[in-house]
């Protein structure tokens, strides 16, 4: 993230008034920027929501299972959570 910021800095500095592309119709350029940001964020939101739900359901069913048979939690599930943590 820091790196991205560092890389963006020179480009931002150069963003002058007569920026070549989108000159004249800035609102359209802004609209595209916003839309791009929105589209970039959605897959992570959707994956995050689904994985979050799965982890929640998983914890719940693991807790249920624990109360049912008293066994130790499965390691496979532990590794699942790590993988979901991506």
């Amino acid at each position, binding site marked *: 993230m820091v790196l991205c910021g560092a890389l963006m800095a*020179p*480009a931002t500095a150069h963003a002058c008034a*007569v920026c*070549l592309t*989108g000159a004249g*119709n800035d609102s359209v350029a802004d609209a595209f920027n916003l839309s791009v940001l929105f589209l970039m964020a959605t897959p992570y939101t959707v994956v995050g929501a689904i994985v979050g739900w799965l982890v929640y359901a998983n914890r719940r069913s693991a807790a249920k299972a624990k109360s049912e048979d008293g066994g130790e939690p499965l390691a496979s599930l532990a590794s699942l959570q790590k993988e979901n943590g991506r």
Partner: protein
Amino acid sequence: MLRWLPEDVSTYGHEIDSLFYLIYYITAATFILVTVLMVVFLVMYRERPGRRAIYSHGNTTLEIIWTIIPAAILIVLSFMSVNTWAKLKSEVPPSDFAIQVTAKQFNWDVFYPGPDGKLGTQDDIRFDNDVHVPVNKVVHIHLTASDVIHSFFIPNLRFKQDAVPGRTVTGWFEATKPGRYELPCAELCGFGHSGMKGWLHVHNAEDYAKWAAENLASKQQ
């Protein structure tokens, strides 16, 4: 492979080319390294009866090394590219020479300012497929299209910009050598895509003045 690059006649072309060369050398070295190693491994470790493969699941140190080295190289390349990119796209040198190019199926309509000295007015002077510019002068090109997306490509100038209908995109170049350079369309624009081409004529100052007197001034009166 590098000798196939078209002759560079623009002020910024050498920056693109040197980035190209740099990436070329890096990738060629990587390619040779990996290929040689692969061939050596294939020969050295080919199946021989009675031999057993080394039982190893990996080496974390090695893996960290070959993660960090490519990452570092790519970051350096990014930094170098960002500077050139900003120079081409954001730090536009000012100029009093501007023309407008409207792409349509399957022609380049080139407009020069008419008597009022402004572009985009009724009295603009139009040429088909021929762009005339003086040498050593920054040229601004206002690009647009009237039907589908085209791409204004002058290989010798290392200049390429899509012309998008409904938008005007401005590009710039400065040619350093008089001559006649081909100007193809680089974006698929229909069945006539392939024949859609024009010429960029770069004149020295006198020739340009002569051309302008004949073709622009005469129409301005």
